[in-house]
């Protein structure tokens, strides 16, 4: 098969993986080497597809042959998709060629499972090893690993990669049993635990002097939203578990997407994309804004409000905590005001030492007044009790109703 045809098949096969991060790697460049590449600091999105997703890595499967049967996946053994396989040398060359033209930050390599986990893992590692050792490639490498692969192989993968990941895909074993019968949460969590230990060790070695140690700095995972009955509470509880126990860098939420090879045991209708968006927002609140899962969702409402962002929804449920005084409130309290982000809060804390903050100041900080006015007290604005107590507050934030059409179709 011609290389371009393989690329078309094996990029298509990889596109359902939402992960695109290329940040957080150890800082290196190619000034003292013979190869190409640099990493460190912020990742770069070199392009965007019309699906709004960042293209930062050459994201491909080594092969889309697979003996597993994950029903949301186009590559499962029950699918009739066209199969292809790259040689290691082909992936290496494509990576280098794209990289030198500044199309990408590096390689994201995954693979269908062929023969068994170890055999697959070895093939994936071989590509990374060749890039690093034969070509002195110093760009970003993300390797997908397999929980059932032997720990020694995962350890080697972590030495060549900047990030490694195992996709959990579904938050409960019950769902996996139906939709991904070969996968196990227990085995995935074990593997994540071992990876965490390796990452911690590497971190310590870097801290204690081995500054240039090239080793993965983080792990991430992906879950698929809307392919099973799991609630948002199930997803967030699982994320809480993964962030807390294994220090994952990111949990990616990927709305189940229709595929050209639909499975008979999957919903036909994809979930609304906004559900995925709300999960990211809630995840963000947990990681950076000090929210607990129990504050975002309650047993009575296990799913996020699709119409309001979760911070606003929380504020509307907790009106007794507002208004907050911009001049005196703590950092934590300010971070909980709908419409105030981390940068804005940082700036407010700085400027309030020198000035009494007024509405015009907020405008110049480019904060949307419409959103914060009911919640934030400034020197020249005190939100009226009417606003905070009224149920109309919620109505005020709901998306505008669509205009009715004049004639029925």
């Amino acid at each position, binding site marked *: 098969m011609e*290389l371009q045809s393989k*690329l*078309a*098949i094996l*990029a*298509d096969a*990889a*596109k359902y993986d939402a992960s695109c991060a290329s940040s957080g790697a150890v800082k290196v*460049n*190619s*000034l003292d*080497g013979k*190869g*190409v*590449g*640099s990493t460190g600091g912020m990742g*770069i999105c*070199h*392009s*965007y*597809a*019309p*699906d*709004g*997703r960042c*293209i930062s890595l*050459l994201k491909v499967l080594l092969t889309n042959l697979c*003996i597993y*049967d994950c029903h949301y996946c186009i590559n499962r*053994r*029950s699918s009739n998709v066209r199969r292809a396989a790259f040689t290691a040398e082909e992936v290496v060359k*494509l990576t280098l*060629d*794209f990289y*030198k*033209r*500044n*199309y990408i930050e590096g390689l994201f390599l995954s693979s269908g499972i062929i*023969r*068994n*986990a170890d055999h697959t893992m070895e093939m994936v590692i071989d590509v990374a090893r060749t890039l690093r050792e034969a070509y002195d490639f110093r760009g970003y490498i993300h390797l997908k690993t397999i929980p*059932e692969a032997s720990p020694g192989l995962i350890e080697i993968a972590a030495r060549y990669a900047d990030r490694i990941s195992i996709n959990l895909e579904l938050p409960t074993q019950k769902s996996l049993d139906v939709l991904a019968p*070969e996968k*196990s949460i227990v085995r995935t969590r074990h593997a994540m635990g071992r990876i965490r230990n390796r990452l911690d060790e590497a971190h310590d070695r870097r801290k204690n002097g081995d500054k240039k140690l090239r080793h993965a700095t983080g792990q991430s995972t992906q879950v698929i939203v809307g392919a099973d009955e799991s609630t948002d509470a199930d997803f967030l509880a699982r994320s809480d578990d993964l962030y807390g126990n294994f220090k994952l860098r990111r949990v990616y939420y990927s*709305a189940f*997407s229709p*595929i*050209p*090879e*639909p*499975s*008979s*045991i999957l919903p036909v209708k*994809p979930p609304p*994309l906004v559900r995925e968006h709300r999960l990211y927002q809630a995840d963000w609140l947990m990681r950076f804004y000090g929210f607990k899962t129990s504050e975002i969702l309650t047993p009575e409402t296990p799913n996020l409000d699709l119409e309001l962002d979760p911070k606003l929804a929380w504020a509307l449920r907790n009106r007794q905590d507002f208004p907050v005084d911009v001049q005196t409130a703590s950092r934590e309290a300010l971070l909980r005001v709908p419409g105030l982000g981390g940068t804005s809060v940082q*700036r407010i804390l*700085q400027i309030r030492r*020198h000035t009494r*903050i007024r509405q015009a100041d907020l405008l110049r*900080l480019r904060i949307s007044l419409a959103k914060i006015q009911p919640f934030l007290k400034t020197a020249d604005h005190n939100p009226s009790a009417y606003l905070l107590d009224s149920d109309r507050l919620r109505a005020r934030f709901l998306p505008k109703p669509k205009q009715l059409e004049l004639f029925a179709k």
Partner: protein
Amino acid sequence: MRSVDPGKSFISWRDAARRMLADHVPPEEILWEAERGLFPAVVTNGTPPEKLKVPAAFVDLAQNVSCHNDPSRWALLYQILWRIVRNGEKHLVSIASDPDVSQALLFARAVRKEIHKMHAFVRFRLIDADETGRERYAAWFEPDHHVIEAGAPFFKKRFSNMDWSIFSPKSCAHWDGEHLTFTPGIPHDPTKSHDELEAAWRTYYRSIFNPARLKVKMMKQEMPVRYWKNLPEADLIHELISGSNNRVAGMLAEEPRPVKPRPKNAYLDKLRALSAEEAD
């Protein structure tokens, strides 16, 4: 009123500003302009005044602001500098809500963003290779702001083992393995070359797009249309968008595929046994 030439860079503006400050010339007395205007130009080659101490945060901010394309940036910077040094507003830069500072922050943000976009959207094309195999690449990039100098060191670190030039109307950067040099901007792409790899890159772009998640606004926000003409993949966008509805309808209309029986495979048997143990 006097006319002062800010030069082209932060350094030339800084030197001129230091002299104005030493002479206690208030902001409203200065017209920052490159060519001689209505007012006599000031001779700025006298003895430089002693160095001024200004907060590091101002220098950071001013370096970015000075790359902005807006001609009012020099006056804005001098105004802030004057307030810090002559009005004693030491903390001015940290007051992001101040009208002058918020304007400067806006300029700086636009510049930082454009530097980032330069790192993202420069597309090198292979020109040739010498007898040792060292390759030479060239790119054409059209930024709104004067970011070539600030953006180039990134490429030196990343691509130190190849020769490259980034041509642009603002200025051009060149790396030969030892020196990073800059030459004046040029109006047109001097190479007009194509690169074979562009076909593969376009194939990749086409294949990585998921038609079931069309989010055109988001794409345009992150990859503004003004950059498209120099991106080899961008002329696919229209076709991908217009074909997406049909592709999704096609997928939804597909007959669901039955589950194939589990193949005989020792490894899958082992997994099954493991799972059974875990369930106990």
